[in-house]
């Protein structure tokens, strides 16, 4: 109980400090681009009404979810295939490195040709960026399946889908989650960027609109919302991860404690 309280205090201390510093430092600011935090906070409830949340934040979140889910499925599936066969890996690696190096925003015009300018395009852009960390981490994870465990599975006749489900994916799951974690931050960046190209709603679109319209305090509230969204998603992610990878954290902790 006291420990939990202490942890809460620790967690809140720095944000509180930073906000205070910002508040005080910006209090008398007359710079258009650097409005007082007070103004920003006052603008917040006016800007982020329920309607705007529904009309702008929700579509963005849905696109992010779509692109992210697509990247996760494709990345894990391809990664498992590539990681399982040495030959496939040797053949695919250079191409993957090449493709990975092309930033999705540059590909937008090309993606637009195939996917249009609607949500499909945005989801594709997000997926195109998120897929790499998932894919590459899955490859590494699948490669690293312990040979003793693999032989154990084989000696007990655990092959095919059962092997995939009970051994390969489970064993690779810590790496897969590491990839998913990276993909999450990339996904948020690309969500914003994809909405800069062609959109009529969305969080990124709104922020850029505020910028263009010189509604600077409103723009700042948008940046805050973006940060909060990312923070929220990361908390959710950690919660899921802790459930799925409970065994892994336990294993690591116990390995650290004893030989």
């Amino acid at each position, binding site marked *: 109980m006291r420990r939990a309280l202490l942890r809460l205090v620790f967690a809140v201390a720095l944000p509180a400090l930073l906000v205070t510093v910002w508040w005080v430092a910006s209090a008398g600011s007359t710079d258009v681009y650097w409005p007082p935090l007070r103004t920003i906070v006052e603008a917040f409830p006016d800007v982020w009404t329920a309607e705007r949340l529904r009309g702008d934040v929700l579509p963005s979140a849905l696109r992010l979810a779509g692109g992210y889910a697509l990247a996760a499925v494709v990345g894990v599936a391809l990664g498992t295939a590539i990681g399982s066969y040495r030959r496939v890996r040797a053949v695919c690696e250079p191409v993957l490195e090449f493709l990975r190096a092309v930033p999705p925003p540059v590909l937008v015009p090309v993606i637009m040709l195939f996917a249009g300018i609607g949500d499909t395009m945005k989801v594709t852009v997000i997926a195109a960026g998120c897929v790499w960390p998932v894919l590459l981490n899955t490859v590494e994870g699948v490669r690293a399946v312990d040979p*003793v465990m693999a032989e154990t599975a*084989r000696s007990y*006749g655990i092959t095919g889908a059962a092997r995939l489900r009970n051994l390969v994916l*489970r064993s690779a799951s810590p790496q897969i989650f590491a990839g998913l974690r990276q993909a999450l931050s990339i996904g948020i960046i690309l969500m914003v960027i994809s909405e800069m190209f062609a959109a009529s709603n969305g969080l990124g679109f709104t922020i850029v609109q505020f910028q263009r319209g010189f509604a600077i305090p409103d723009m700042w509230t948008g940046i805050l919302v973006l940060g909060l969204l990312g923070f929220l998603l990361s908390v959710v992610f950690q919660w899921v991860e802790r459930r799925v990878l409970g*065994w*892994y954290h*336990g*294993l690591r902790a*116990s390995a650290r404690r004893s030989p």
Partner: protein
Amino acid sequence: MLDVRGLKKVYEGSGRRVEAVRDLTFAVGAGELVCLVGPSGCGKTTLLKCVGGLLAPTGGEVLLEGRKVSGPPPGMAFVFQEYGRSLFPWMRVGENVGLPLRQKGLSRARRGELVRDALGSVGLADAVRAYPWQLSGGMQQRVAIARALAYEPRVLLMDEPFAAVDAQTRADLEDLVRGLWRERGITILFVTHDIDEAVYLGERVIVLSASPTVVREQLKVDLPVERDQLHTRVDPRFAELRTHVYEQIQAAKKGVVAS
């Protein structure tokens, strides 16, 4: 029960060619407990993997109940040295023990019964819901043994199963294996490089030469069937057998031809 005839295994790869096992012939009768001893690196693991169908031999053959072994046979179970890498850390003890049974297609009820029974045999009935890494090394190895037992094998292959557990746990586990063997009448092929262990455990000890490996000597252990850590180990006959095997192994290391 188990016939090894002219077994030969050569590892080839990266231009290097290692003749791990040259020509091994021996037999294990039904219900026997045979220990294999040999210097480090002489090919004991290689031999056991060939017997277990995990490796294809370069020459010769392995027969289980008269049928040639070409893949992991259903009537055989393997216990590896590396307990930490043979149990799946993402599954609870019960699931680990039950997984091979699910693969065998047994009913849920039957599985539960076998798992409980096997864990009871190794004295870990309480640990069903624990994760492997929550257990000590000795307990983990007992879970691996329970998994093998639940599989109801006719032949049990054990590859230095106690090399990595502490001395006192090892003594307990040795007594456990002898107890299970006497109780269940399983055929056991037990590999070790601890001479005391081989003599203490086995009804027969097969001494292997250094690489390239052949059978150097087969030795009947004429100690009483009822053995215990305290008295058997200070029995003069034990000391004699131990000394004999020790000398054979020293000679094997030096490459002296057996008399």
